[in-house]
C-alpha cells in the first residue's frame, strides 16, 4: 500500500474538523476582509448545525457506500473496543466521550446570561408623514428673489452671513484686507462671480452657483458646531462621543444610509430625533436630539445640504416624481 494511505475513519474525523474550522473561523475571518467592518460576522448557530448535519449525512453515505468501506471505517473503532490499543486507552475513551456528550448537553440546556436580541428598524416609515416625501431642500434651488438680493449684496460687498460664521469672516477680513469679502471662498464659482462683478455683468447662473458655495460653507459650520461631536468631522460616524453610545451614530458615508432616503425624510428625522421614532425603532436607545427645539428650519436644511455634500451622496428621488 502507498504511504499516503489514510484510514477511512481518520479521514472522516479530519473532514469533520476541517469543515467545522471553516464554518467557525475561516468564514468570519473572510467576512472581515469583505465587509471591512472592525468585527467578524459569525455564522449563526443554526446554520453551523445545518452545515455539520449535511457533512455528517454525506460522510455517512460515503462510509456505507460498500461493505468494504464500512469495514475500513469500523476497523480502528473495533480495535479500540477490543482493547488492542491497550486497555488503558479504551478506558479513557469510554469515559471521556460520554463526559464530552454530558458536558455538551449541559452547555446547551443551561440558561445563559446573554443579551436578548432586539430587532431595530433603522428607517421606520410607520409614522413618517406623507407630506415630507416630496419636500425639497430650499437651498438646492434658491428662489429668483433670493438670487437677486444676493447679487445686490455682492455689488455692495455687504453679504449677509449667518451669525455663526460672521466672526470668523470678519477677523479674516481684518487680517487679509481683501478687495471683496467673497475672496475667502476658493473655487471656480466665486472666481467667476468676482470676474463678472469687475466686468459689471453678473449673470443669475453664476450668482446661483456662488450662493450655493456660501450655503455649503455655512452648512458645514453649523454641522461642525451641532452634529460633529457624534457624527465626526467627516460625517463618518466617528466623532469623539461615538464610542459612548451603544447605538453608534450613523456613518453617512456608508452605503444604505442617507442615499436611500428622500431629503424630506432626513429633514423629518433631524427635526424630531430619537423621541420622534416609532416603537419599532427603539426610540429610547437613540441619542439623536429633537433639533426642532434648537435649530431653525433654515439651519437644519443648510446642515442637510452640507451633510450630503461631505458624504459625497445624493438623496433618493421622491416617489411622486
Amino acid at each position, binding site marked *: 500500500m502507498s504511504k499516503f494511505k489514510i484510514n477511512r475513519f481518520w479521514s472522516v474525523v479530519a473532514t469533520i474538523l476541517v469543515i467545522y474550522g471553516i464554518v467557525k473561523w475561516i468564514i468570519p475571518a473572510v467576512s472581515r476582509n469583505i465587509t471591512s467592518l472592525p468585527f467578524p460576522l459569525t455564522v449563526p448557530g443554526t446554520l453551523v448545525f445545518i452545515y455539520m448535519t449535511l457533512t455528517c449525512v454525506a460522510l455517512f453515505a460515503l462510509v456505507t457506500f460498500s461493505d468494504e468501506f464500512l469495514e475500513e471505517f469500523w476497523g480502528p473503532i473495533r480495535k479500540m473496543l477490543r482493547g488492542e490499543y491497550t486497555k488503558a486507552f479504551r478506558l479513557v475513551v469510554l469515559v471521556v466521550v460520554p463526559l464530552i456528550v454530558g458536558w455538551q448537553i449541559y452547555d446547551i440546556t443551561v440558561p445563559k446570561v446573554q443579551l436578548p436580541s432586539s430587532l431595530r428598524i433603522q428607517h421606520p416609515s410607520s409614522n413618517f408623514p406623507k407630506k415630507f416625501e416630496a419636500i425639497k431642500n430650499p437651498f438646492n434651488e434658491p428662489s429668483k428673489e433670493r438670487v437677486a438680493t444676493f447679487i445686490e449684496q455682492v455689488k455692495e460687498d455687504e453679504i449677509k452671513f449667518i451669525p455663526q460664521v460672521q466672526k470668523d469672516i470678519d477677523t479674516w477680513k481684518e487680517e487679509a484686507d481683501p478687495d471683496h469679502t467673497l475672496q475667502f471662498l476658493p473655487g471656480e464659482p466665486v472666481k467667476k462671480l468676482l470676474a463678472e462683478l469687475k466686468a459689471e455683468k453678473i449673470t443669475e447662473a453664476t450668482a446661483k452657483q456662488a450662493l450655493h458655495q456660501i450655503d455649503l460653507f455655512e452648512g458645514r*459650520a453649523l454641522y461642525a*458646531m451641532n452634529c460633529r461631536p457624534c457624527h465626526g468631522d467627516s460625517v463618518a460616524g466617528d466623532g469623539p462621543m461615538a464610542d459612548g453610545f451603544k447605538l453608534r451614530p450613523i456613518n453617512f458615508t456608508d452605503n444604505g444610509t442617507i442615499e436611500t432616503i428622500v431629503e424630506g425624510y432626513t429633514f423629518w428625522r433631524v427635526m424630531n430625533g430619537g423621541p420622534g421614532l416609532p416603537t419599532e425603532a427603539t426610540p429610547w436607545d437613540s441619542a439623536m436630539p429633537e433639533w426642532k427645539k*434648537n435649530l431653525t428650519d433654515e439651519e437644519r436644511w443648510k446642515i442637510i445640504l452640507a451633510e450630503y455634500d461631505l458624504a459625497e451622496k445624493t438623496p433618493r428621488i421622491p416617489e411622486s416624481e
Partner: protein
Amino acid sequence: MRGSLRNKATIMKFTFAAVIALSALFNSPVLAADVAAKPMPEATEEFVEKGREIYIRRCSMCHGLLGDGNGPAADYMDPRPRDFTLGTFKFRKTQSGELPTDADLFRTVSRGLQGTGMQAFDSEIIKNGLSEEKRWQVIAYIKTFAQEFGDEELDPIKTNKLVSLPSNLPPYNDELIAKGKEIFLKAKCWECHGKQGRGNGQKAFDRKDDWGFPIRIRNVTLPWKIKGGSNVEDIYMRFSTGINGTPMPSFAKALSNEDRWALANFIKSLQHQLTSHQVLKAKKVEGEVPLKPDDTAWQTAEAMDMRLAGQVVAAPRWQNPSIELVTVKAAFNNKEIAFLMEWDDPFKDAIHKMDKVFKAKDINKVGAFNSYVAANDMIPRALETYRDSVALQFPAKFKPGTKKPHFLRGNSSNPVNLWVWKADLAEKAKSGAEEATARGYQQPARAQAKDQQQVTATSEWKDGRWRVVMKRRLVTEDSNDIQFSTGKFIPMSLNAWDGSNGEHGLIMSLSTWHFVFLEAPTPMVIYVYAMLAFLITGGLGIWLMKKALAKTA
C-alpha cells in the same frame, strides 16, 4: 484506487497549507497609511491653492479661516483646535520646541488625534477621506499660516533636530515595567499625572497652555484619550519630544533612551482593558450584601465597564465630559442588592454652590447661536464649586418586552427611578444617596418622599478615584421604584458629574441602556439531563465493547 488516495492526501496537504496561509493573512492588522509613500511634492502656487480648497471644505469650521484655531466650532471644544499661526505643534518626532517635519503633519492628518475632535482623514480609513496627494496639498496650505516654516534655519531636518526610535529595544516585559515604574517615581511624573497615572497629581489642577487656555492633565490609564497614540512607540515619543505649547516637557536630556523606553512600557501597562459585555451579572452572596467599597466580596464579582458620553441630547449640551468610564459591579442576596461604581476623578469636590447653577434659557431656544455650553468662560470649571455625583438609572415600571423610557431621564409616560449619590451629602450625612423620580429631562428629577428613601450608600475617594456603593431592598412597596427579581434583564444606565469640570444638572456624562441580571439558581433538571446523557453514552460504549469482544471470541 491508489492514485485517488494519493490525490486525496495531496488535497488535504493543500487544504492545511491554505488554512495556515489564510489565518496568517486575516490576523494581520489593517494597515492604514500614516506614512506617505512619496515625500511632499513641491508647493507650487497651484498646489497650495488646491490645499486651500480642501482646507475651507474640511478644516476651517474648527481651525478658522486664518488658521488661528478660532473657527465657528472652536469655543465648544476642549482641547481646542490647533492654532497653526505660531508653528507650535504638539505631536512631532522632532526635539522639544522645534517645528514638526512634513511627515509629522502627514501622520496627524492621516490618523487624527484620538479622543479629540480631530478624526482620521486617511481615505483608507474613511470613505470620503483624502488621498495622499490631497493630504499633501492641505499640509502645504497649512504651512503657509506660520512664517516659521519658510525659515531654513528652523527646518528640523536641515538642522538635524530629529528624534528617532532607537533600534534593538527590548520587547514589552515585566522587568521593563518594574524599571519603568522606578523611573516614573524618580522623574516625578506623578507630580502632575498622579501615582496611578489618573491625572491626579498635586500640580494637576489649573495648568495652562501657551495660549492661556486651561489644560487637563491626561489620565494615561484610558488608552482612547491618549491623543498622540497609545502604542509604546507613541508614548516613548511624547517623553522624547515633549508636547510643545503645553507644560509637558521633553525628558530627552534627563533620561536615557533605555529609561524612556522602560517608562513607556510602564505607562502602557497602566492602560485599562475594556470589558465588552452589556449585561452586568450580579453576584449571589450568602449573608449580607457588601456595603463598603473595600469589602473583599467585591473582588470575585464580575465587573462591567460602562462607557459614558457627554450629554448632547438636549440643551444645555456638553461635549467635554470628564468621566468617560465607570466600572460597575453588583451583588445580591434574598433581600437586598448592592451596586459598586468606580471611576477616576482627579479631584474630590464635595461642595455645591446653588447660586452658580447654569441657566440654560439663553441657549435653549430655536435659533439661539448654539445650544452647547462653551468649554471655557460659560461655566466655572473650578474646584469647590460643584459637587461630584453619580446616578444609577432604572425604568420606574419595567416589564420585559415593553417600551423602555428614553435613556435621558425617560418621559412623561415612562418615568425613571434614579439612585443619586452626591459627594456633598455624603460629606454631611452618613449616606449620600437620594432616591428620585424623573419624567423627562425638561424638569429636574424629583426626590422621593422621606419615608420612601430606601437607598443607602457608602463612598470613598482615594488616589483620584471614587468608589461608591449603593444598596436597596430587592422589592419595595413604592410604585415609582424598580423591583428586582431573578432571571430578568433589567435595564440600567448611568449619569455622572465631575464637579471641578463644571458639571452639574444636564451638563454631565451619561451612558445608554445596559442591563443587570440577577442569576436564578440553575434548575436541578439540567444536571439530570447532563447526567442522563453521560450514562446513556457510557452504556452504549460498554455495550459496543462487549459486542466487539464477543465477536472475537
